[in-house]
């Protein structure tokens, strides 16, 4: 699976990628661009990535997740380029035999992704001001 896209993230594709009749619990996470108000209303965010590494690092994270809970299925994608307010920048789906595993592993993947994926974001405000955001 490709973990980097310029297009809107489709939750249905992530869910389909992990679905199986052996897995009774599926957890999906979407990180979406907030309108924000710290510096003024955000118009959109431009995500820049070290694309080759993003692809490899996301694969590694997902492989590690499978290693932690072998009977699970995991999928993840990060959007790059312009992402409008209210649209998703990242999606992660985990299906597991039981719900507690699905939640725990999905949250683990999200935390690892935030910590490890080589992605940066430039926030563009309604007034046109642009700045790199580190968070």
């Amino acid at each position: 699976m490709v973990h980097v896209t310029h297009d809107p993230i489709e939750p249905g594709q992530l869910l389909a990628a992990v679905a199986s009749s052996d897995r009774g619990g599926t957890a999906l996470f979407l990180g979406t661009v907030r309108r924000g108000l710290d510096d003024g209303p955000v118009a959109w965010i431009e995500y820049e990535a070290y694309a080759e590494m993003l692809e490899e690092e996301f694969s590694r994270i997902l492989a590690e997740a499978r290693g932690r809970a072998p009977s699970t299925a995991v999928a993840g994608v990060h959007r790059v380029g312009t992402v409008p307010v209210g649209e998703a920048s990242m999606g992660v789906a985990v299906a597991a035999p039981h719900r507690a595993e699905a939640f725990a592993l999905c949250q683990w993947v999200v935390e690892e992704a935030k910590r490890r994926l080589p992605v940066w974001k430039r926030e563009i405000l309604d007034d046109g001001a642009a700045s790199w955001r580190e968070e």
Partner: protein
Amino acid sequence: MSTLTIHCRFFARYAELLGCERVDVPVPNGATVADLVARVRASVPSGDRLPVHLMAAVNRTHVPSGHSLTDGDEVAFLPPLAGG
């Protein structure tokens, strides 16, 4: 051959600070990522605008600053990550 050629890449804010996304930098055999950072800051134009401590990836894998380099390595200098 006691010199390694390292393919450096800069992203986001760092690329803006340097006005450059890629540059090849020679370092002595046995050099670490920390040594490369010092060389970049001293020899690349505007290099001193970069922080002294930089997060780096070698060949698309996160590494600590003590990581030893090999000829031809691609070393990316990563501003604080903000994905997700």
